[in-house]
């Protein structure tokens, strides 16, 4: 999955040069930043910086946000979809149409409201069936893994926005994340209908708080990838959808067993594979 920070599993960008830190000597400030690859990473071009990582610099460059929710089993899907859709609403634009001289026009993003069946909650999502299907598929897999894992029912789902960095042949592209949202889920088991009813409302209120947190982060207007030229647009945006254009993203999840360690670190690439070769 590209260069990962040793401890945190994050990539890094150089804010000044607005480019990911890949080649040595790129930026004076970050020359000493070195990275180690994760186990599933692709080979990197020769001449890259070494293997250690400066955690502080990593933290500076890739935004990481963590949200936690406690839900009942049947609420998992709706809660996850509400959060993921809200994040993607903010991280999607209309389709770009490039014209000559490097200008482009942007399509229109529609929204629609979704009522939850198991939670007293309604959220707005992008009107794109393809996007909805993709997220539902990811969340469905996460839910199945969570339910099958064991009695504890603790897991997390990660939505990561990344940029692709084209590498020279024979090496394939790198994926450098610039924003990672981690949603930690704790599944509770409820004994009777009364508790379920209370849970419906409580989870609804919690989701309201989470959405307010998300919006707060979004409106800090921190780093966003520069608007790309036509040749670079696929490195920044997912242009495969027909009606909207979200930033490149991938969804992965981890299930924690009762011992607290990640036994099944099932990192699945559900959407947008990075293996270009």
């Amino acid at each position, binding site marked *: 999955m590209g260069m990962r920070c040793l401890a945190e599993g994050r990539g890094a960008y150089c804010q000044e040069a607005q480019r990911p830190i890949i080649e040595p000597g790129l930026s004076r400030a970050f020359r000493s930043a070195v990275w180690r690859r994760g186990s599933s990473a692709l080979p990197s071009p020769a001449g890259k910086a070494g293997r250690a990582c400066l955690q502080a610099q990593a933290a500076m460059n890739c935004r990481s946000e963590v949200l936690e929710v406690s839900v009942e089993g049947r609420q998992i899907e709706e809660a996850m979809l509400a959060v993921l859709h809200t994040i993607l609403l903010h991280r999607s634009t*209309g389709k770009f149409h490039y014209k000559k001289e490097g200008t482009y026009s942007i399509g229109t993003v529609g*929204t629609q409201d979704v009522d939850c069946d198991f939670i007293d909650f309604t959220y707005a999502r992008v009107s794109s069936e393809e996007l909805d299907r993709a997220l539902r598929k990811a969340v469905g897999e996460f839910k199945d893994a969570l339910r099958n894992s064991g009695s504890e029912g603790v897991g997390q789902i990660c939505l990561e926005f990344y940029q692709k960095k084209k590498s020279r042949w024979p090496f394939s592209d790198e994926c450098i994340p610039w924003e990672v949202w981690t949603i930690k889920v704790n599944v509770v088991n409820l004994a009777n209908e*009364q508790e379920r009813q209370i849970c419906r409302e409580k989870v609804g209120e919690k989701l309201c708080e989470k959405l307010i947190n998300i919006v707060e982060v979004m409106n800090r207007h921190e780093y966003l990838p520069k608007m790309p030229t036509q040749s670079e647009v696929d490195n920044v945006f997912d242009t495969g959808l027909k009606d909207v254009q979200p930033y490149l993203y991938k969804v992965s999840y981890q299930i924690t067993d009762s011992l607290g360690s990640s036994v099944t670190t099932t990192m699945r690439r559900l959407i947008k594979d990075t293996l270009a070769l």
Partner: protein
Amino acid sequence: MDTDLSSQDRKDLDKFIKFFALKTVQVIVQARLGEKICTRSSSSPTGSDWFNLAIKDIPEVTHEAKKALSGQLPAVGRSMCVEISLKTSEGDSMELEIWCLEMNEKCDKEIKVSYTVYNRLSLLLKSLLAITRVTPAYRLSRKQGHEYVILYRIYFGEVQLSGLGEGFQTVRVGTVGTPLGTITLSCAYRINLAFMSTRQFERTPPIMGIIIDHFVDRPYPSSSPMHPCNYRTTGEDNGATYPSVEDSQEVCTTSFSTSPPSQLSSSRLSYQPAALGVGSADMGYPVIFAGGLNAAHPHQLIVPGKEGGVPPVPSQPAHGTQADHERMVMCTPLDGALYSAATPSSSEDTETVSNSSEGKSASPHDLLETIFVRKVGAFVNKPINQVTMASLDIPFAMFAPKNVELEDNDPMVNPPDSPDAESPLQGSLHSEGSSGSSAGNTHDDFVMVDFKPAFSKDDILPMDLGTFYREFQNPPQLSSLSIDIGAQSMAEDLDSLPEKLAVHEKNVKEFDAFVETLQ
């Protein structure tokens, strides 16, 4: 200082801010219309979608917004505010939220107007779309209709937060820095929804049509008229929910509507409760019972569907309503059958209820008279004071043995000849504790909450899951289970026994042969 800003940029910025303000108002008002909003994405730009978002423009809203702005733009000390308030059918109104679009002096000179500011305004609108579904007023606005409507008002100038009551909360949607100042969008919303404590609710006909109110004497400098956030007639049913209640629907609640098929079901089902001695008004439980009444029969999870347009919101004793309201917010009904109001002050309510129920018990039956004719008398003459379901918060409280002396008077134990409506459990369960439900205080203090079975869509189609469920909730009793027939057949059996024995003795040999084949 706009010496750094080119005139083109300045013009663009002003345009952006103006349209941003208009779109903000559209998003807020549309989110309070009470229905789900859906717009389509379009990959080819139409050129008319500001900020690359598909936000419809309701002409009246745009007109109001432009009128309020009257050519000005939000600036320091001049904010654009959208006030959302609730108005009940009796005329009470309450401010729920104030959305403010403000500008302050903190400028960001470096920012590029045509690009960065525009995109950030677009992001802010998306945030607004998300946040408008998250504040408490959203759920209230989804249930507007018969009992209350949501109104909006736009004004320009100083923000007035005094109408929101104590302890209101603020949520900041976001900010965008521009060379002329920083635009901030925020919402202040009311927490304390207890304004109705001083009013006594009575049954009133539903609000039909659109309400336009003109508040002439508002204390604000720019007194603009309030407008409803509801652009359709209230022929649709939104459930007769208690206005200030959070949505706590679940299985056993009900709603009343004017849609014909559900009226059919209502007339059928209402028979059941009548036979059981429980007024149709009882049916709906769940959210609250001011009278401490839980008439919930386990069968009768749902109220007989929908009555003709009259929500059975009961009259509430005046002093009880404050407590009621608090209970409302606290209690969570789940299963109407199990729920009885665990209310601290219910005992006093019962008393008041007993005073008022005499007069009130007639009223809920107005509409139901045609159906319940026989049963009206059962409630009205019933002595009320023996009923105290007060502070029972154990499940099946109503079946706890109590008030046994009432059995003789209990129409359920000695049912008058009701045609078909006795449910199987009636004999076993009702004889014990149903007196509580049959008291006249039934219809006074309960709240109808929407019955929303999971996975069912909004009650647009007449025969949807909820209606189906309600209709088939109370099937008639099986004839073989009725006691009389049972007793009868027993006697017959006994009489025919000697004959049967004689026949069997004759066929002894056959039986023996048969038994041998089995071995």
